[in-house]
């Protein structure tokens, strides 16, 4: 029940917005995330954006892993 899907924010109108993933768009509320901007990826749960996906942190997690994977070979 705690599933939240990362979607790209494509419209902002005050505390409301529209987010998109794979061509599917959905109305979302942005009340919890005053810092979001167009193009950001946000986690949507029950119509409410609950977190902004931090691209730098995502990249860091993956690149640390990839470096370690490469060192093995």
């Amino acid at each position, binding site marked *: 029940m*705690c599933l939240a899907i990362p979607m*790209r924010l494509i419209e902002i109108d005050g505390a409301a917005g529209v987010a998109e993933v794979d061509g599917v768009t959905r109305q979302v509320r942005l009340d919890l995330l005053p810092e979001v901007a167009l193009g950001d990826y946000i986690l949507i749960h*029950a*119509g409410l954006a609950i*977190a*902004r996906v931090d691209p730098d942190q995502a990249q*860091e997690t993956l690149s640390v892993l990839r470096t370690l994977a490469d060192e093995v070979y």
Partner: protein
Amino acid sequence: MKYIDEFRDKELVQEIVRRLERLAPAAATIMEVCGTHTMAAARFGLRSLLPESVQLISGPGCPVCVTAQTDIDAFLALGDEPGVILTSFGDMLRVPGSHTSLERRRAQGAAVRVVYSPLDAVELARREPGKPVVFFGVGFETTMPAIALAICLAAEQQLENFSVLCVHKTIPLALRALLASGEVQVSGLLCPGHVTTIIGAEAYDFLPRDFGLPCAVTGFEPVDMLLGIEAILRQLQEGQARVDNVYTRAVKVQANPRAQALLAEVFEPCDAEWRGLGLIPGSGVKIRPPYAGYDARLRFPEVWEHLAPAPPSPCRCGEVLRGVLRPRQCPLFRQTCTPSQPLGPCMVSSEGACAAAYRYDG
């Protein structure tokens, strides 16, 4: 999909699996607290990737599953009130009450609508001003802000026909009660990533401090969950206990201040009855007096006056939720309890431990 596919990368998964083998202790039992983790672990076959000495067990984190029978019966009874439209997340539809379910009531002609968001229920109330619209407020901290927002928006629009049966529950106090009981022995906890976007990773600081347990806050893709398990095994190896956050792209140490303000505006703590865990003081929320008009318990008090106590049931979901009985150890599993004829919520909910075991574990 971005931020999903990368975290399902096979090579990265294999790399972490190799590291888990090197870290594997003699024995470790890790509880995945969250029902969404239970389903992800089953769906991606993560148990088969773990070292043999590492067990993953399910915890009390499926909100549908821990909803008390009397609360389900009360919501079903609200549907008998004149003109009422019941609205709910789809997860609750097939969960059996003592005598019926939302799905069966709908088939018999009752007004039951499944909504994706509580905001859709508010919109329904706006479009149907003559009919009371009641939303079943089930869910943990991840879901509570959406319900609080729905109540605020209904108040803003001065809607008089919207109300919520609020049975929300909070995770940290349930974990404390479960661990303090001593009934289940775990070596570490995978903490629920999306609950933590709201309450912050620091909400689990009591777990290492009071129970000496390593914890990792993690996301829901295979790479995320395996990184969480690795973080716990590493702490065990080092003889440490702390809260590691391996879901840094979404989770911060601190709570989301907007969410906390919204929750404090609409809700206040109350005692809550959990299926399997019993009454846990302060682990629920109720609607605060300024929003009393949106509280279904106050709008329809007669429903609770006539509510019969739930009759005894052979269902052993309570033990499954406490992590002391594995789905397959339940004598009802696959025999009299199946997804098409479920006896308890753990077999109904898509995130229930029994449904996950039935569907994915052969």
